[in-house]
């Protein structure tokens, strides 16, 4: 109830209270004073005194509250409205601002139009909180149009709020009421706004001013000084491209761009990150080197190829950079085994023999090969598809609560527990969950190397590098660990108290992270049944989780209402970065193997790249249709990104940050986008045109777009050899 002016103290008359919070001068003459105002006030006074004398304290409080919602002018006289106007007060105020913003100079328009959304939400909430459901609904349907594209989810959540108690209970409404919406305006823009509100004081300016003071946190910047993102030139460009996306520092989180420090007074200092790869254990390194030496001598590389040892040295060579590596002490791992050696050796081998993908050269993107694995007869019951790192196993989590695993090379999946005479097939069913399975994750593994030519001892270690465990998470709030040797359930992890949406193994194994509808992400280690860390901070469901390649950080993405991507430090358990800019639910996150860039995708079809060191947005990439980008994958060199999603396509993206390509759109679509621009602003045809535009427009950094035949792509990722493996279900 922070919105309501504080109830006046009992001894005073129902007096001036609302002006208290206002930072701007509110001098002005009383306007719109109804003739009977004075007597009305007296009556209130009398009734209040009567009630307090009789001890009807609750009735008295209610009367005070309701009489308090009447606005007061500076002289202490209540500004009353006739009954019809009462419910429409916020509507009128909003309309005044909206008309003004629509007709303002072009240089202010982009920044000032951003203020409309929070004002719209608050005007609506206020109307409802004042017990005017009819007017509230009318206002909502009347004015929601311009926000349909960007805030559709929030709108849906708010659309049925009709009573004051709903305001109390609705997540989105509470989010907006209890937090201040941060917005950055240029100094000039903010001054014009305030000036305008003052001139319109009686026609709603005051109400708006009240909202700005109570619920908004407007930062002013000198536009000329900062240039860049908020520079004039940039603003003009954005206007042409009709770019409707929240800025990085906009939103209810009120943080400095990138920084996770939510204290509004803190400087924008950034938490220092340790982005270099995790150093190897000395013993392990020696073992791997010896193994590689042996391998080199038994299979000498072809001329022109580097030896495996050279390759390995090059890989672990510490490059002179300002990155620090996380220490093994802060993140303890179990001691390495022969299996780890085999995996490292195989990784080096694959890295040398991989298909090399350089960046975009001369405007031509690299040719990427994609293997598509399509599942048939699924009846839309498949929730997730996952491939093991060695590309031997494929697993599917279904809505019918079971998991199905296939061996992709048609190998029988045998278990030592099989009864004698049992003929194992190449597919297994894992039964244990009691709700739909939403995500699966294989423990790290490396592809099984080709059998050694000289029949040496290698056999034992090579067969060891297959994935041994799989994690699954489900709507029954549990996470389960499955053994892929016996095909049984080993551990049930219970701690989340809502459905678990995503689970991911650490790139080095041992640890894993999960994210849930209870708004937390949690860190676990496989031998312990209680979580090691609980990462709380998101304002809505944590939809997806991803690891930094060095295993020292995790990334989480949230859905409706929050829409942020956050980076958490494993060692400290704190937020290291917050990235704001998505307009839809974050559906997939992937961090580049070089550890410096993270890509996140939402269900509006936008992929955003973020630079971890600076915490800033690198670029937005558009092209996917709406419905969700369910998977992202990076090439080994971190030069190319692949994405797959609900629009039945696998797309390949160039990740080089280049300012020209970002502003431009593909040749043939550029014209269309420009034509669409005014229409969208026009409002009437907004949603329809927006959809068409969303499908056709794709940014120039899309290298290729491979459509599948009616098969939504559930997962798409690069193997260590730079082949793309995609999985989907055929839905005729």
């Amino acid at each position, binding site marked *: 109830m922070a919105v309501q002016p504080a109830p006046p103290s009992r001894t005073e008359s129902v007096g001036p209270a609302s002006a208290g919070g206002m930072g701007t001068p509110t001098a002005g003459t009383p306007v719109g004073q109804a003739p009977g105002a004075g007597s009305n006030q007296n009556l209130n006074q009398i009734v209040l005194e009567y009630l307090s004398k009789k001890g009807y304290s609750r009735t008295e409080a209610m009367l005070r509250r309701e009489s308090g919602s009447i606005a007061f002018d500076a002289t202490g006289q209540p500004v009353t409205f006739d009954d019809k106007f009462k419910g429409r007060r916020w509507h009128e105020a909003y309309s005044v601002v909206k008309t003004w913003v629509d007709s303002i100079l072009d240089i202010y328009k982009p920044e000032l139009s951003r203020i409309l959304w929070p004002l719209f939400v608050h005007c609506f909430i206020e109307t409802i909180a004042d017990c005017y459901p009819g007017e509230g609904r009318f206002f909502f349907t009347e004015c929601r149009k311009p926000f349909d594209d960007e805030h559709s989810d929030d709108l849906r959540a708010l659309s049925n709020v009709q009573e004051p108690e709903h305001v109390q209970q609705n997540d989105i409404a509470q989010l907006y009421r209890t937090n201040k919406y941060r917005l950055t305006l240029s100094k000039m823009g903010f001054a014009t706004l305030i000036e305008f509100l003052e001139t319109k004081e009686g026609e709603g300016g005051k109400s708006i001013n009240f909202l700005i003071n109570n619920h908004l946190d407007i930062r002013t910047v000198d536009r000329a000084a900062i240039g860049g993102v908020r520079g004039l030139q940039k603003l003009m460009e954005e206007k042409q491209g009709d770019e409707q996306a929240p800025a990085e520092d906009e939103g209810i989180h009120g943080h400095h761009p990138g920084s996770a420090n939510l204290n509004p007074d803190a400087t924008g200092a950034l938490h220092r990150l340790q982005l270099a790869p995790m150093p190897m254990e000395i013993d392990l390194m020696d073992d791997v080197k010896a193994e590689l030496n042996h391998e080199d001598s038994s299979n000498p590389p072809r001329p022109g190829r580097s030896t495996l040892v050279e390759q390995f040295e090059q890989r672990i060579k510490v490059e002179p950079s300002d990155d620090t590596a996380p220490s093994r002490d802060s993140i303890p791992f179990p001691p390495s085994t022969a299996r780890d050696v085999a995996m490292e050796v195989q990784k080096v081998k694959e890295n040398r023999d991989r298909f090399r993908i350089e960046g975009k050269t001369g405007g031509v993107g690299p040719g990427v090969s994609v293997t*598509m694995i399509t599942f048939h007869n699924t009846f839309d019951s498949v929730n997730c598809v996952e491939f093991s790192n060695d590309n031997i196993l494929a697993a599917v989590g279904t809505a019918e609560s079971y998991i199905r695993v296939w061996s992709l090379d048609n190998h029988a999946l045998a278990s030592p527990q099989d009864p004698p005479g049992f003929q194992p097939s190449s597919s297994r069913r894992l039964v244990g969950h009691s709700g739909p399975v939403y995500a699966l994750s294989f423990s790290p593994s490396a592809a099984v190397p080709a059998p050694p030519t000289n029949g040496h001892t290698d056999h034992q270690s090579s067969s060891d590098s297959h994935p041994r465990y799989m994690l699954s998470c489900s709507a029954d709030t549990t996470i389960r660990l499955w053994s892929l040797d016996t095909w049984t359930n080993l551990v049930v992890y219970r701690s989340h108290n809502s459905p678990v949406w995503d689970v991911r193994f650490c790139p080095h194994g041992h640890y894993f992270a999960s994210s849930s509808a209870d708004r937390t992400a949690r860190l676990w280690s496989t031998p312990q049944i209680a979580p090691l860390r609980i990462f709380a901070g998101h304002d809505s469901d944590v939809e997806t989780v991803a690891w930094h390649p060095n295993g020292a950080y995790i990334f989480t993405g949230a859905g409706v209402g929050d829409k942020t991507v956050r980076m958490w430090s494993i060692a400290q358990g704190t937020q290291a970065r917050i990235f704001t800019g998505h307009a839809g639910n974050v559906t997939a996150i992937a961090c580049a193997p070089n550890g410096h860039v993270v890509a996140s995708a939402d269900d509006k079809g936008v992929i955003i790249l973020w630079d971890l060191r600076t915490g800033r947005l690198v670029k937005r990439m558009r092209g996917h249709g709406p419905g969700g980008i369910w998977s992202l994958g990076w090439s080994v060199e971190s030069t190319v990104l692949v994405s797959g999603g609900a629009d039945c396509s*696998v797309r390949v993206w160039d990740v080089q940050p280049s300012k020209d390509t970002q502003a431009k759109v593909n040749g043939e679509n550029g014209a269309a986008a420009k034509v669409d621009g005014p229409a969208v602003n026009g409002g009437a045809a907004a949603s329809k045109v927006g959809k068409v535009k969303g499908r056709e427009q794709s940014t120039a950094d899309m290298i290729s777009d491979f459509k599948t035949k009616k098969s939504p792509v559930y997962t798409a990722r690069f193997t260590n050899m730079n082949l793309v493996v995609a999985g989907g279900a055929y839905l005729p």
Partner: protein
Amino acid sequence: MSVWNPENVTDVAESIGIASLNRDVVEHLARDVEYRMSQVLNEALKFMRHGKRTTLTTQDVSQALRLLDVEPLYGYESTRPLRFGEASIGPGQPLFYVEDEEVDFEKLINAPLPKVPREMSYTAHWLAVEGVQPSIPQNPLTDPRSAELAAKGSSANSTLAAVSGNDNIAVKPLVKHILSKELQLYFERICGAILDESNEEYRSAAFASLRTDTGLHQLIPYFIQFVADKVTHNLKNIFVLTQTMQLLAALLDNQSLFLAPYVPGNVPSILTCLIGKHLGNPALDGATTHFALRDYSASLLSKTACQYGPSSSTLKPRIARSCLKHFLDSHKPFGTHYGAVLGLAMIAGAQGVRTLILPNLKAYDLHLQEGMKDDGGKREQAEYVKQAILRALQTLQEDAVMEMSSNGHPAGEALRERLGAVGEVVGARVFESGREGLIGAVLERDPVV
């Protein structure tokens, strides 16, 4: 005002014994119901989204209710879409309810079990190879219209004209194949020379060139096409058929050419020459000339199969299957049977003869006898087939793995009778040949088995 009808609230209130509710309360409750329902739906949508679906199911709703700590509605778990019945309780007041089917127990118990749904399975294919999407059935057709739309910027006019149909647009092949003048000339000359009946020297020179010349790679598809053309249009002309077969043989002989990708295009032509119904013109060439062509084609086919069989696992089975089909079809003329037997013997070897020809001989014997009895040209043809079968059986003898059974075979009539298992005609011939090995080989596969 609210979408939810306030009357419903009144109805529910009456049903639990609250007779009169204030109008304001009713409306308030109706609005609240509406909000709660949208809350449930919002949660349910979340489950739908994570299920990566676009249809909301009853399970999603029950999951959402569970998440909101409400007891879910039971009895609506349904994998099929629910059917709603409509009843009217007053003017403009439809009432919807879920239609329950009446089930007759007797019928339900006696009904056959429903079909088991098909097993979930996967297939793999190339969605893209080096940045290009191959046009295979697993990939969607690239819609030419969308390509045109994309290119509307530069060639809007021509597209428009094409759409309205008053412009004859030349369809360009996807890949432009550039042949040098010399190669084109060479191709024409070779084709001319091969079909030149009058000049023997000329022909052999052409074949020699094809056998030895390197650098003919680019012409292979053209030659294959040429052969296919000639074969389909000149079935009556033994000479042309023979020449084209020789052309293929020459290409096959050429060490510098790699024919594997073209084999599937090659085989139909050869098969036509092997088991075609009527080859050549009997009136002109004589009734039996085509057997020579069939012989030649068979050897060519076996050569192709031997050379490229390893690289294509389905090549041999496919050829064997079509040969067998024609062999078993008694309506086909003897020429076809002859070719089929030859083909089978050559492709499948002794093993094939044993499993494919031997068991069918008894049935075929009838047909063969009929042919032998005929006085016309048929007898002669049947004779050829008999020879072919015997030759095929001889491969068995060469392949014979069994040792001579110690007790030998019954002699005289008894043996003759047993040999009858492979058909009277052939059996007689085998008997007459009197060769122990052959008899043994034929009998090894005991007809009783």
